């Protein structure tokens, strides 16, 4: 993870048409931790949500063959069940709940190294055509880096 760049996933370890699993390790240091909180660094809950949304985003961008980009439109039923500290390793799961016309509803979960759920949420992604071909190329390259075929 590189929090200040919103780079939340390190690698995609499994995915099929309706699920995706990724892994990530929290950095030992980050400007985010300097403020959240001084002397007691923990991952902000909003970044847990972002992490889950990115896993779902990669699932959708793969389903849509890199033709459309997903954007977070709604978060519902988000629960932050525990804290994540610098250096913690996590597994992130995304599961497709409903694939609609121009949107998708997904269920996300973050588990700690012991497999215990740390956060979960149901969220909605809109999908739009990429505004620029260059952005689509960047996303495709990043997907390859993460392990998407």
């Amino acid at each position, binding site marked *: 993870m590189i929090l200040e760049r919103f780079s939340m996933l390190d690698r995609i370890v499994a995915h099929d048409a309706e699920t995706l699993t990724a892994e990530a390790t929290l950095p030992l240091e980050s400007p985010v931790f300097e403020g959240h909180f001084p002397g007691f660094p923990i991952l902000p809950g909003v970044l847990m949500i972002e992490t889950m949304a990115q896993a779902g985003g990669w699932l959708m961008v793969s389903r849509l063959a890199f033709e459309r980009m997903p954007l977070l*439109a*709604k978060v519902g039923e988000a629960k932050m069940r525990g804290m994540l500290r610098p250096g913690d390793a996590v597994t992130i799961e995304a599961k497709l709940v409903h694939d*609609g016309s*121009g*949107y998708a509803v997904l269920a996300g979960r973050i588990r700690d190294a012991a497999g215990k759920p740390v956060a979960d949420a149901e969220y*909605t992604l809109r999908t739009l055509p990429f505004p620029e071909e260059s952005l689509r190329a960047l996303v495709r390259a990043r997907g390859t880096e993460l392990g998407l075929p």
Partner: protein
Amino acid sequence: MAADTFDRIADIIAETANVDRATITPEAHVINDLGIDSLDFLDIVFAIDKEFGIKVPVEAWTEQVNTGKAPAEQFFIMKGLAERIDELVAAKG
């Protein structure tokens, strides 16, 4: 238009977007008259998809309206919306 379909959709809209059920008439425009924004409409479409077991092609509808190929009434007036849902359910078999 099946009255049952209209009622089911109206109930969904009232509950999902917190709209007074009495204002949802067959002639009401979903966006203009009921004050529903695009995100609420997304929630409504999701609820309709689930309720009827269909995939409302809202993107195709919007494109048809925006390009002048179809009037908004065809999809976004409650009466028309219910008719289109009936068609989608019938096409599903």
